[in-house]
């Protein structure tokens, strides 16, 4: 048994990592819906979910249970195989794309094995990722086509056209980054950003540094990525005021949940990519010599833990008063533990993931913020915007970056 395990250690570790990552991503997904509902609610002077659990913290669980238990009728006249395949495809592809994203620089040593914070690290990581997300259009197109209904058909037509046209701008907008990093590998793209001017971390990020700062590239990428993930203001496919629910009108129960999870997973992927490609991934924005910034996680965790305790003891329900201070204590103790000199190595290790997650959270917030603010584009305006503005700008960005990269290498 031991022999078997050690002989196949690589595979077993990868399998465990996959299960762990799936668990984490799905949980994050669930709480992303909570986060979105809360943030949008507070922007709209509402409370958001607050009935299930303190501050509605158990709402995602309740929603999950509801999705599982709802009746799941299959409408008459659907193409059964394709109708079932579409949500599987959407969710499967969305989850697969997370596999190539590195979450931290250093490996953990477990029983003599190096465990890296990614599942796969292909040298063409970014290409693989784009290939997988590009396939995501099939989920939408097939769902709309197989439903045998007019609203989903219109929705999926819109969305297929949209995803295919924005794919171009999306891929072209990262070419600048690739030229500067000289690699398709996501880890190497981050490492290429770790040589900042004057040692100030933030100046090394692609958006501010290099032969040609990728500000244009970033905006093209982020806009195209929002369109690619079908979110406001590009959520035409599911524009509920026009097409009822777009391509997933005929889906209910868990099949609907699969589309839902796929959408939120691709939001996370896009936020990861934004931080990795343009904002230095796991790199800290501060000068490397500022070692005291290593205490930032503690500095963040302790006050927020204390705040949760303070909020918890004043909470209106008894469950809130019991649970919230407990959670707060755990958070605060975690922060304290990280500040201990004995646990210095843990603290150093989590710096990478800490910054990456922080950046991801900012982008997720921007997503939600846009949802609370912007009206929706019209189909033809969206296409015009993609082809007439985004595409030329991203091509210009490629040409300019290439020119400056060439200028630097052959002065």
């Amino acid at each position, binding site marked *: 048994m031991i022999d078997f395990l050690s002989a196949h250690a690589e595979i077993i570790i990868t399998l465990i990592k996959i299960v762990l990552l799936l668990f984490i991503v799905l949980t994050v997904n669930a709480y992303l819906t909570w986060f979105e509902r809360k943030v949008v609610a507070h922007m709209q002077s509402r409370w958001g979910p607050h009935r299930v659990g303190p501050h509605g913290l158990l709402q995602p669980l309740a929603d999950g249970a509801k999705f599982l238990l709802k009746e799941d009728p299959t409408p008459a006249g659907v193409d059964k195989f394709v109708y079932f395949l579409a949500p599987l495809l959407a969710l499967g592809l969305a989850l697969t794309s997370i596999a190539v994203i590195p979450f931290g620089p250093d490996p953990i040593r477990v029983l003599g094995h190096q465990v890296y914070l990614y599942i796969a690290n292909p040298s063409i990581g970014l290409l693989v990722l784009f290939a997988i997300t590009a396939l995501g259009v099939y989920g939408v197109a097939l769902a709309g086509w197989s439903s045998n209904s*007019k609203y989903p058909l219109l929705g999926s037509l819109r969305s297929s056209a949209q995803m295919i046209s924005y794919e171009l701008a999306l891929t072209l907008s990262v070419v600048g980054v690739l030229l500067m990093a000289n690699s398709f590998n996501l880890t190497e793209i981050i490492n290429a950003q770790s040589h900042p001017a004057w040692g100030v971390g933030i100046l090394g990020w692609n958006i501010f540094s290099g032969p040609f700062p990728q500000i244009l590239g970033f905006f093209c990428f982020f806009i195209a990525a929002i369109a690619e993930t079908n979110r*406001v203001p590009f959520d035409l496919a599911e524009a509920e005021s*026009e097409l*009822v629910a777009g391509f997933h009108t005929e889906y209910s129960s868990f099949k609907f949940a699969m589309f839902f999870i796929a959408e939120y997973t691709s939001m996370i992927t896009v936020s990861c990519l934004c931080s990795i490609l343009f904002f230095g991934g796991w790199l800290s924005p501060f000068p490397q010599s500022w070692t005291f910034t290593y205490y930032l996680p503690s500095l963040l965790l302790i006050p927020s833990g204390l705040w949760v305790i303070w909020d918890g003891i004043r909470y209106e329900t008894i469950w809130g008063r019991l649970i919230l201070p407990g959670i707060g204590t755990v958070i605060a103790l975690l922060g304290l533990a990280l500040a201990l000199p004995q646990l210095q190595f843990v603290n150093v290790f989590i710096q990478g993931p800490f910054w990456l997650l922080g950046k991801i959270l900012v982008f997720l917030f921007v997503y939600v913020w846009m949802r609370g*603010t912007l*009206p*929706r584009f*019209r*189909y*033809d305006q969206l296409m015009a915007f993609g082809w007439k503005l985004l595409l030329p700008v991203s091509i210009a960005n490629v040409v300019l970056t290439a020119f400056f990269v060439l200028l630097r290498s052959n002065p």
Partner: protein
Amino acid sequence: MTTVETPIGTAKTMVLNMGPQHPSTHGVLRIALELDGETVVKAVPDLGYLHTGIEKSCEDKTYSQAITLTDRMDYLNPLGNNLVYCLAVEKLLGLEVPKRAQYVRVMLVELQRISSHLVWLGTHAIDLGAMSVFLYCFREREEILKIFELFAGQRMMTSYFRIGGLALEPPAGWRAAIDKFLKMMPSRVDDYETLLTKNRIWMGRTQGIGYISTEDAVALSMTGPTLRASGLAYDNRKLFPYSSYEEFEFDVPTRTDSDCFGRYMVRVAEMRESLKIVRQAFDKIADQGPIRSEAPGIVPPAREKMKTEMEALIYHFKIFTEGFAPPPGEAFVAVESPRGELGCFVASDGSAKPLRVHFRSPSFINLQALPKLTEGQLISDVVACIGTIDIVLGEVDR
């Protein structure tokens, strides 16, 4: 059932059934759309899903009882409906309403106009994807409904106006409530404009969409903000003043762009004008004075009189058992509702119940323009056009 005929087999177009259960047909409007891709070739509105028979029911009520039915017609403008019906019956009776009651009527109707425009703005914005505006608008509408509750004890189906005046004396504390609202509201209107007016996406979605020329609008007898956005300053409050509107100073906002954006701008400007009118009425309303005209046999007597005078007691009994009988004849009154010219025709045969009550409802007539506005445009624009016509299905079908 309205159907759109398409040749089967050779058809290049698709028929899409929009409504009656659809998120943005503002109720139970059904539109049969013939689509070429996403372009609308033909749009046929189909009505009658909310027919309530209000006009007919009025014929079986006494003149006073029918007031409560009018509330339910245009449910975003119940006080306006009360007003037009009361004015028509008062015209039939030749009744003069005390100034104090007239000012209160003007003030409440203008608040109602703001609340109706708020619902319109919110739903129109959410149709075009701007979700937050919807909730902001309803937050402010809530304040107006609280004021109505203070006055009438009801938030929506107020029935506060009676033939000859008002149902009740304005409640204690009404001045504070309205003053608070008047101070809050202007900055809130600015907030909506910040989110929408100069927003590029909003402009793209509304400018040039749903164009209708002044001639076409007049030919279709459109009224209200929809007509004023096409460049004609037609407003019953200015042209045919009623309920002392001639004593108030306000502008009639017009635009010449004749599209969805113009209609949006006109309605936002109207909210500001209404605030001006409410402020003026607020200052004009005296603290003391009659709220009902002196018309024994028609207007119920005051409580104290009933306890001291026998005639008053008899009148009270007669009004609430058999009602009152206006002289035979007919009367028509038109007011400016938030949606346009709301007219009321009342015919009397000399009995205590009206012979015929008919409402000229602006929603119904403005809705006729829908095919003209939408044909040749995209399916997304249909939603924008329905929104800016501002229909209330309860009033369309009556």
